[in-house]
Every structure is written in structure tokens, then in C-alpha cells.
């Protein structure tokens, strides 16, 4: 079954991976003001988009 939902305005879905590519966590985060594709308060490299 597939459930498709759209993101609430001001939020992005973030998947966090460690340096080896292992998934650490996935969660909704508020977007950074002025950059709607970037989750707020996240350090590290943004791989996508």
C-alpha cells in the first residue's frame, strides 16, 4: 500500500545518514527561513536536493 501525503507548509521531510551512509533517523523538520528545501538546525552536508 502506498500513502502519499503532501508536506505541511514550512516543513521538509529529512532523512539523516551517518558518514557511512547508514540511516540514523527520518523526521519532519521545519524549513530554514529563506530556504524551504533545507531543514532547520541541521549541521552537516545536505545530500539532496
Amino acid at each position: 500500500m502506498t500513502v502519499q501525503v503532501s508536506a505541511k507548509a514550512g516543513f521538509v521531510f529529512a532523512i539523516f545518514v551517518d558518514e557511512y551512509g547508514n540511516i540514523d533517523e527520518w523526521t519532519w523538520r521545519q524549513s530554514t527561513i529563506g530556504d524551504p528545501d533545507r531543514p532547520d538546525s541541521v549541521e552537516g552536508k545536505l545530500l539532496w536536493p
Partner: protein
Amino acid sequence: MAVSKRLETFLAATTIADKFQPYHELNLETDTLTFYFRGDADYSKRLSDHVTLYLSVDKDELVGCRIKGISGILEDLPNYIDVTGDDGELQLSLVFLPFRGEVKQSEQRVLANLAKQARGQTIPRHLKPCGAS
């Protein structure tokens, strides 16, 4: 009865939030503790280097949290507090104590709320890989 009416009746009687049971999960691989005490749809907000809060999407209310570096906390707590017990477990609410100095004064109430919600839940004092005895 029309299908939509039956569905409405069913949904009214099946409130997932009402049936939610607080739970926590220790993950040895990521060295984290995840704790949820409400079942609302949530998003995360970083409180400090080690504590991430889960807030409800609809009302921005606290529903849970994630703590990084949980193994270090479990190892360190006995240096400060007597956590020894016959059952080898400690109160979940204790793991929030070390972060009181890490967050701003205004945010300490959030930690206190988490500790309050965690009351009555226990976690093992030593993390073990799945299947280890």
C-alpha cells in the same frame, strides 16, 4: 446506512490517539533513546546537541524526544545517583537529569515535562545487542 456515514461512525469510535501507549526504544546501533508519550503526528526540533524534541504538527505540543549518546548517560549516572536495583533497571525519568545544565533556563521546563511523562517507565542499566544474554 451510507458508506460515508458508517466510516464516520467507525472513525469516531476508533481514535488512535486515545489508544496510544507511551513507549521508549533504545537503539544500540545509533546510541539513542527514543521516547513517545503521545501518538500525534509529529516533527522534530533540536533542543541541544543531545536532545531532539518531537512536537505535534497541529499544535506544537511536546509528544516525545530522542536522546543521543544514551550509553554514556547510562554509564555515567551511577557516579552521581544511586541507581542500583535488584531488577537491573533504572527510572527513565533520570536520563533527562544530565541535560539540565545543557539547555537554557527557559527550556528546562521542557526537560521537566519529559521527566514527568517518563515517570513509571524503566530502562535497562546496560545496553546489550539484540539477542545477547
